[in-house]
């Protein structure tokens, strides 16, 4: 890999890290509009993060080093993920480090660490949150993996860039299997990013929350990192979705500067659209009872496997 690719790689990561809160803000803003509110504005997440960074950290007396380590691990994991996902172009040198399976593993690692951190303090809500987080995870992960499998069966590869390239250049090939996969992926995305209908990102009603319960004990910079990595996670997932199901416009192969300049606005537009769609879904649905979550995810898992079967059946 030459210097240029490395530079592009890093610029991409930086872009992702920077743009992630923006996406979050955009989604919230859209929701506000859909609920006829003015909304805090698109830049609100940045303000929050900045403020949190300046606060003094308050930490439970019996917190272990693990507890302090976790936010950094979270954030690092999401950055690495961002480096692997072809959000702008596919020629990512880092992509060899981890294919789709490793990507799923990466997300799993992040989740496990978060759950451990939640159990570390030993409050009722922390451990409850950890349990629910893992419950969501152990159904969402396989579903995500199956989605990837469907895609990689099409492209005979598990490395994300290759998948995206095959999907991107297959202009008008219609994959019915991908339809199933797409729905499944959407459900996983909602669950993984603690969105309605599985979880409510803005709720602080303890008994219903999942993700919030796990980070209840965090404050200041740690909380800032967590929030940021959450935004980054949403960004990553969205990018994955776009790359898999709307790969057009990504700079593929030997990327010339023209492609890149073309790719950036394309991706931007797609992200805006996706964000709006997400907000729409969240406004139209109501949060479901926590006990219904497994059924929801099981459905996702089933759809993904169905997609796999459909692919094998129709050979497409």
């Amino acid at each position, binding site marked *: 890999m030459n210097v240029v690719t490395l530079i592009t790689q890093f610029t991409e990561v930086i872009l992702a890290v920077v743009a992630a809160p923006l996406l979050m803000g955009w989604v919230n803003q859209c929701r506000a509009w859909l609920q006829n509110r003015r909304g805090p504005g698109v830049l609100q997440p940045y303000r929050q993060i900045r403020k949190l*960074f300046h606060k*003094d950290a*308050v*930490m*439970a*007396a019996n917190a272990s080093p*693990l507890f302090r*380590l976790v936010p*950094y*691990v979270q*954030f*690092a*994991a999401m*950055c*690495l993920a961002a*480096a692997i996902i072809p959000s702008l172009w596919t020629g990512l040198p*880092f992509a*060899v*480090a*981890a*294919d789709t*399976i*490793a990507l799923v*593993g990466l997300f*799993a*690692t992040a*989740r*496990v660490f978060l759950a*451990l951190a939640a*159990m*570390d303090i*030993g*409050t*009722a809500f*922390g*451990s409850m949150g*950890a*349990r629910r987080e893992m*419950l969501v*995870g*152990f159904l969402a*992960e*396989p579903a995500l*993996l*199956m989605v990837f*499998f469907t895609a990689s*069966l099409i492209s*005979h*590869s598990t*490395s994300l860039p290759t998948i995206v390239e095959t999907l991107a250049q297959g202009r008008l090939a219609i994959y019915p299997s991908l339809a199933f996969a797409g729905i499944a992926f959407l459900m996983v995305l909602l669950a993984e990013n603690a969105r309605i209908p599985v979880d409510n990102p803005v709720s602080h009603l*303890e008994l219903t929350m999942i993700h919030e319960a796990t980070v*209840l*004990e965090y404050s200041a*910079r740690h909380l800032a*990192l967590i929030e940021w990595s959450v935004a980054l996670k949403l960004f990553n997932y969205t990018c994955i979705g776009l790359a898999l199901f709307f790969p057009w416009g990504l700079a593929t192969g030997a990327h010339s500067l023209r492609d890149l300049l073309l790719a950036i606005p394309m991706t931007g537009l797609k992200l805006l659209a996706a964000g709006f769609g997400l907000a729409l879904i969240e406004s139209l649905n109501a949060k479901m009872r926590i006990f219904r979550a497994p059924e929801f995810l099981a459905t996702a*898992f089933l759809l*993904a*496997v169905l997609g*796999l079967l459909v692919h*094998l059946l129709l050979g497409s």
Partner: protein
Amino acid sequence: MTGHPTDLISITALACGWLAIGLLGFIRPRSTGWVAHGLFPLGAVLGIAITALALVALAHPAETLILPLGLPDLHFQLRLDALSAVFLLLIGATAAGISIFSAGYFRSGEGAAPGLLCLQYHLFLASMVVVVIADDAYLFMVAWETMALSSYFLVTTQHRLPEIRRAGFIYLLIAHLGAIGLLLCFGVMQGGNWQFTFEAMRAAQLTPVWTSAAFFLALLGFGAKAGLVPLHVWLPEAHPAAPSPVSALMSGVMLEIAVYGVLRVTFDLLHMQLWWWGLVTLGLGLFTALFGVVFAAVQTDMKRLLAYSSIENIGIIFLGVGLTIIFHAFHMPLLAALALAATLYHCLNHAFSKSLLFLSTGSVLHATRERSLGKLGGLIHRMPWVAWLALVGTLAIAGLPPLNGFVSEWLLLQAFLFTPQLPHSYINMLLPMGAAALALVAALAAYVMVKFYGVIFLGQPRESTLSKAQDCGRLERIGLLWLAAGCVLLGIFPVPLLALLNGVSRELLGASLGSQLQHWWLLAPIAPERASYSPAVFMLSIVVLVAVLVLGVRLFYHGRVRKAPPWGCGFPLLTPRMQDTAEGFGQPIRQIFEPLFRMRRELPSPFDTSPHYRVQVEDHFWYALYMPIAGWVRRISNLAGAVQQGRISVYLLYSFLTLVALLAFAL
């Protein structure tokens, strides 16, 4: 065959060395110091030596040796080839860590005299080595049963407890039944020429029917030892019963030895493999894995939890074996090699990480005298060494990158992804299910491990006594460190080891991944653009990122921290009892997989002043399979007892009738 089998001779010598150490224990059987600080470290050194030799032998061609012992016309035959070498590596490396740990662990005798314990322990090790290098049925059986026997005595070390006696009995009984199966298997495999050397068995040409019979007898025999469902019932009883280093050996090494047996029989001794065996094995493996992990999720005893997780891992390993058989049967050598590599790699992973976890439970047990998850918690503050090293094992077993557990699962999933190329449409449809189930199992394993680690080491101590817990001693730390290092290295540098494993696949399948493993840092078994994973880069980037972040935050902002009591959501007093218990953590799984369990619940009534909640999860197989068999035996023996009711005339009548009948017959 090479001229002079130096490696083999030295391996044999080392095995005898272990035996000798065991006997040395009898010099001063009651002295803990002599046994613990003299003999066990010595055994560890031998373990390391075996590891080194195995690494050397992996590169060399197979060696054979005949000892002038055994049956008059069937002397003990020994053979050291790549497959044996891999498992010798496993035994040696794991045993080294465990022995060092035991040196610190066996402080005051665990119920038996230390010397006796030492003998049984090293006999166990030596017999496992012999199993791996045995090259004739008789020696194999002798070593195999010696292994079972010595481990039985180790399991029943604390024989004063009735449940431990029961565990030991069930263990030995099932082991014996398995051995009978193996005996039959060998009897079938000699294929008419009544030679019981493996050499002759390789040469034997059997009909497909007999080959299948041999294979399934082997699956029965070795499955009984490996804990394949439904032959698993002894495992969750016996492993917790044994002292922790022994549990580590049994879980981490002995189960893998059973896998060795399956591989040896299937790919080495049998001359053909039929694809549907693979399907059966794969199905069994899947079910075992799912069964194991689901039961692990609802356990409340830390060692039982680990035992069930061993069942799960064995299931995954047999999954790999099944895939290998299928690919091999359809003549896809490269993919078969891939699946085999995944299988062997998972064996190694499981050996390291499971022993690590069992040993850390041992330390916890020593420090707290407590096995039930409901009474532990918060130990990361009291015993940081154990806690942090156990974290490595936890993540490894949970199959998370960049540790070792993930590598083998990654390889397995890769293998699954290639199944659509099989020339058999039905399997094509079937196998993705397998992949899905594997993914599910892996995710559940993560769930289980979070429960395991979180409940034991994190949170607040659930009992006041835990505040007096001490961290483990120096020797124990070394042992744990050794194993943890193994996990990390296996996780980060898979490529060199896979290159070593190529010898095995070349020997068993006639194909290898060799050509695909040029970059030491990049794991791309088939082709980089198809699939690639570079744990080194992965690890590196995460570490770098974390470092950069920590420094960055310190640099731009500050590191100030105020300690405060945890936020109780406005609830005034927060007691440890409010944390999730082990039962609570398992509850969602219990709900989702209800039909798999046989549950007895005691729910308190809402008006109960001292509410008491109990739930007991049991195994269906115990009641559906084992009880009826016992019942039949009892019934038949009652019938037999009726023959003998004490009256002499009747006895005379028996002899009379016998005589008359025989005369009539002879006439």
